[in-house]
């Protein structure tokens, strides 16, 4: 909760704030809730000034009113194609701004490889910066280079692409928050011509361990969701998170079976609270050694259960 400060309005002096604190009016919400007549008494200001301060509080800390007519244009101008054609079809054109996409799968199902492919393809465009937050210390520059070499990119192009993928390693949830807050500051400085279009967090279970109904972790995840939504919405970019799957039943060992059957038993990790946070959740499943099935697990925007197949080889991700 934000405390009252002189920064809100020059008329609100520190002695007035002290007086208000004695009346148990410490935060901006408490100031708004207090009757203006009382505030006049406590501060000695005029009604006009009190109302002005209240308006200032709304402007600085309240929500910003936007018109959907204008937001529509912003949405249409900020779809970033991954240039993985089947994935783009699945996502109806690419990644939309303001959205959190989550890639789920068991370990070695190819989640990180898919992230590499998305990061590389987006960074191939000179206008795009990719932010890659690595919690598992397994970001592999040579892998990116390999993918680009297979695309017949020149040395110079490879260097430029690598330069546009900004990697950052974090080892704890506190560091993740630190990086995200630092990111907000650097996003403000960015040039419109070449700016961050996507933030990849690979992976969340790497820094958050959640098995019980621990309230503290739920509060942390709530905070994380708020920060991610803020970055994605206000800086017109999308966020891709990677998550694991828990509670697989015996069905998986019996080999490939229908997706819907398996889904009943599978759940993303990070607990119940996180379930509804990502806007679109993708499920990556192994079919044989090289083939993978990528499907929409749940989404508000997209129809669930649509799927495509892909293969992972040294060329990166291929969609046959």
């Amino acid at each position, binding site marked *: 909760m934000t405390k009252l400060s002189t920064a809100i309005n020059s008329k609100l002096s520190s002695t007035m704030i002290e007086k208000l604190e004695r009346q148990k009016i410490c935060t901006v919400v408490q100031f708004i809730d207090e009757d203006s007549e009382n505030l006049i008494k406590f501060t000695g200001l005029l009604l006009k000034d009190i109302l002005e301060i209240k308006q200032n509080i709304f402007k600085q*800390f309240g929500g910003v*009113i936007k018109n959907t007519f204008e937001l529509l244009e912003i949405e249409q101008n900020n779809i970033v194609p991954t240039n993985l054609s089947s994935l783009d079809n699945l996502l109806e054109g690419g990644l939309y701004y303001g959205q959190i996409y989550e890639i789920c799968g068991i370990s070695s199902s190819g989640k990180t490889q898919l992230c590499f492919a998305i990061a590389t393809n987006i960074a191939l465009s000179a206008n795009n910066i990719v932010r890659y937050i690595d919690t598992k210390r397994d970001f592999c520059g040579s892998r990116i280079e390999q993918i680009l070499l297979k695309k017949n990119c020149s040395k110079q192009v490879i260097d430029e692409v690598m330069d546009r993928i900004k990697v950052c390693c974090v080892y704890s949830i506190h560091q993740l928050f630190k990086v995200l807050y630092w990111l907000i500051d650097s996003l403000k400085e960015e040039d419109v011509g070449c700016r961050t279009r996507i933030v990849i967090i690979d992976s969340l279970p790497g820094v958050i361990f959640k098995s019980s109904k621990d309230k503290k972790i739920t509060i942390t995840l709530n905070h994380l969701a*708020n920060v991610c939504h803020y970055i994605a919405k206000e800086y017109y970019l999308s966020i891709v998170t990677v998550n694991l799957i828990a509670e697989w039943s015996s069905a998986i060992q019996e080999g490939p079976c229908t997706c819907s059957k398996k889904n009943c038993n599978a759940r993303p990790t990070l607990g119940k609270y996180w379930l509804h946070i990502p806007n679109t959740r993708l499920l990556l499943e192994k079919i044989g050694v090289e083939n993978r099935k990528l499907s929409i697990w749940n989404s508000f925007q997209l129809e669930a259960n649509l799927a495509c197949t892909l293969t992972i080889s040294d060329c990166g991700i291929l969609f046959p």
Partner: protein
Amino acid sequence: MQSQIESGIELLARLNKRPSLRGLEDILFFEGPRSTDIIEISGEQSSGKTLLLSQLLAKCILPNYREIRGCNASAVLINTEHHFQISKLIRLMRNIINAANTVSFTTDTVDMEFDETAVIKNSLRNLLVIDCYNSEQFALTLRMLDDIFVKHTKIALLAIDSITAHYWQNCQDNFITVDAYVKNLLQLVRTHTAQFNVATIYTKLYKSINNKELTDDINYRIRLCKTCNTCTLKTTQTVKKIYYSILSNGIKWKMDEKEIPVKEENN
């Protein structure tokens, strides 16, 4: 926020100017909702809460033009969950317009198609969105509503998706139950909407522990259950069960509804 002096006639004019929400969704609201109703949509994740809310918003902001039968009203959405998406809203609006077109007997389809995009774009001007990223911003936004309603006299509906999004952040300082948290917020909402004749729809992720406690404040309780595909609608008079399914173009109701008197439900 400002204290205003106005005559009784001016006051009446201001109160009566807001468009009516009648016909917003005939299957759910009988001759309603009325101008100060509070409507709750609850359900598990991906049970279709935001979808239903968006569908109601689409109907609310569309014009009452030919067979579209929208409410031609403005609405304000407080977006705390960030699942609402404009492209989806447009798809829902398009669906309503198309359904209306098949009903009407117009032959000049070219003309209608040209109109469709214009109608949608114009209707979007009726919808304001306020994104909130933390509980303080949400709290302040609710307190800003008076100013917003005074400024935009066409607003007849307040939508909150969802009311519980910042519940956990609130728990950090002092723990209260979800029910008590929602009740406090609704009281606040009520003080800001009632005098302006604005109806409220909000979504809620969590199940109420005590179902009876809130009935006085809430006029319609809609509970969506995805596994059984039923929508349970409770008002003070009746309890209705309606089957529904989620299609790419929105929620479809299946009409073989059962109406159960309220007494049987309270066993």
